[in-house]
């Protein structure tokens, strides 16, 4: 069973105009069920675009995208994934709690269920005390954590995350990485995770997909084979050798 299957996808923006951009060129990617895949690459190489294609927020110029064996559009309509964007994108008129409840609300869950789930998620991202606050009263990093809680709230089978930890401090970042892994392992969630940080990609992933720009394409894949994912492993030689391997793949020198 594959969670995501992208085949032969090319994405051209503004086709036929002077500002035509080939954001992705002939991309193939499969994510197995329960697998954690990171996308890494320099700015502008089409990571966000690839994620948005999987989420069916964009239709590919050519090629096909399937999620859980269904066309991406159908998967979106069935709400088969949760998504967290680069910017938190919270609704400023809702409290933190009600922001997390939003996807549950749209699924028609009862108020009590929503309350409970939102509280649980806020606890997880360490914002239980801020449930009644409004987004404008939170720091950028806290807002991002709310957005993560919102994406996780529905326990989706597939999680799409676009640099969700980019705005966080190192401490929070590492704590949330561990939490995220725990959640994914516990619920068997498949994840596509965009990041700029090589150590983050190595720590989180089963597989790191390396991309390069102009045109955006996949230039390499690094399988990560670490014995465990705890704080100790971050210091291990095994970890550093994987980091070096990803860095080399990024530079294009094997």
């Amino acid at each position, binding site marked *: 069973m594959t969670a995501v299957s992208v085949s032969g996808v090319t994405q051209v923006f503004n086709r036929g105009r002077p500002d035509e951009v080939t954001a992705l060129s002939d991309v193939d990617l499969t994510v197995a069920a329960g697998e954690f895949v990171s996308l890494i690459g320099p700015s502008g190489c089409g990571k966000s675009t690839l994620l948005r294609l999987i989420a069916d*927020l964009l239709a590919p110029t050519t090629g096909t995208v399937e999620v859980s064996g269904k066309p991406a559009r159908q998967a979106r309509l*069935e709400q088969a994934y949760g998504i967290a964007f680069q910017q938190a*994108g919270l*609704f400023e*008129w809702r409290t933190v709690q009600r922001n997390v409840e939003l996807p549950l*609300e*749209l699924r028609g869950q009862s108020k009590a269920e929503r309350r409970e789930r939102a509280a649980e998620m806020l606890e997880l991202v360490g914002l239980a005390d801020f449930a009644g606050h*409004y987004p404008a009263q939170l720091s950028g990093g806290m807002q991002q954590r709310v957005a993560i809680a919102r994406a996780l709230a529905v326990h989706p089978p597939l999680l799409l995350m676009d640099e969700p930890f980019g705005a966080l401090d190192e401490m929070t970042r590492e704590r949330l990485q561990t939490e995220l892994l725990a959640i994914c392992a516990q619920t068997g969630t498949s994840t596509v995770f965009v990041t700029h940080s090589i150590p983050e990609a190595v720590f989180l992933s089963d597989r790191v997909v390396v991309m390069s720009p102009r045109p955006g394409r996949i230039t390499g894949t690094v399988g990560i084979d670490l014995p465990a994912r705890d704080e100790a492993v971050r210091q291990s030689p095994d970890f550093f050798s994987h980091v070096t391997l990803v860095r080399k793949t990024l530079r294009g020198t094997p």
Partner: protein
Amino acid sequence: MRRVLSVLAAVVVFVALWEGYKAVGDPDGTVLFGTRVLPRADDLSMPHVWDMLRRLGRPELTGGRPVWQVVLGACLFTLGITVAGFAAGAVVGLLLAVAMQRFRLVERGLLPYVILSQTVPLVALAPLIAGWSGNLSFGPYPWQDWMTVAVIAAYLSFFPVAVGMLRGLQSPQASGVELMRSYAAGWWRTLIKLRLPAALPYLFPALRLAGAAAVVGAVVGEISTGTRGGIGRLVIEYSREATSDPAKVYTAMLGAALLGLVVAALVSLLELPLMRHRRRVPVVTM
């Protein structure tokens, strides 16, 4: 609370300016190269503020009701018309904005006419509406004069609502719209959960403009249709006595100003509970 204080401050400043000009201004006005650039400051053109207030207390005609009762009664009459027209105009404006947001084509086709509609002079419009609607009736209820006035008020007030609300509905960023899309929310649910709440900071300034426009529409509408009983009519009646009783016409104008304040206060009353936690956007009229 702050807003109430600022309204009071504005009144004080206005009175000070009025009396200040009366104190220093030339009673015959200032004439430059044959045109009067500053108005006469004599008691006939610019009665003292306290004269106006005192006039409110005295009877309209000898033996009649005191002026303040007459003015207040007229204000209430016009307020009713204003509120009816304002409500109708706001609803039409909202519906237009939603339709324009929903269909690009409607926006392209309709927006120019919406803007054009406001360039038709009000005075030309009033007899037209009166003429068209004269033989309308709702079942047993025939069309009435005040309805014509309300339509004019509505005609003036739908515009700021339509334009402001359209901007508000289009204000959510792409990320918010994409988020709703990722939740498989259709147009309607995106409207309810995202666009309408996002539009509120645009809606209220627009409503305030619309309220002021509705007051103007009602007063001018009363005058140009000759509707009796309202403040517009009172201004005309009292201004005939301007030479013998100059303070009297200003009592009617005070009434009209009061009407504007009341309508603005009504909008604020609506706004307060809804906007407690919201950032404010600068007032946008176009």
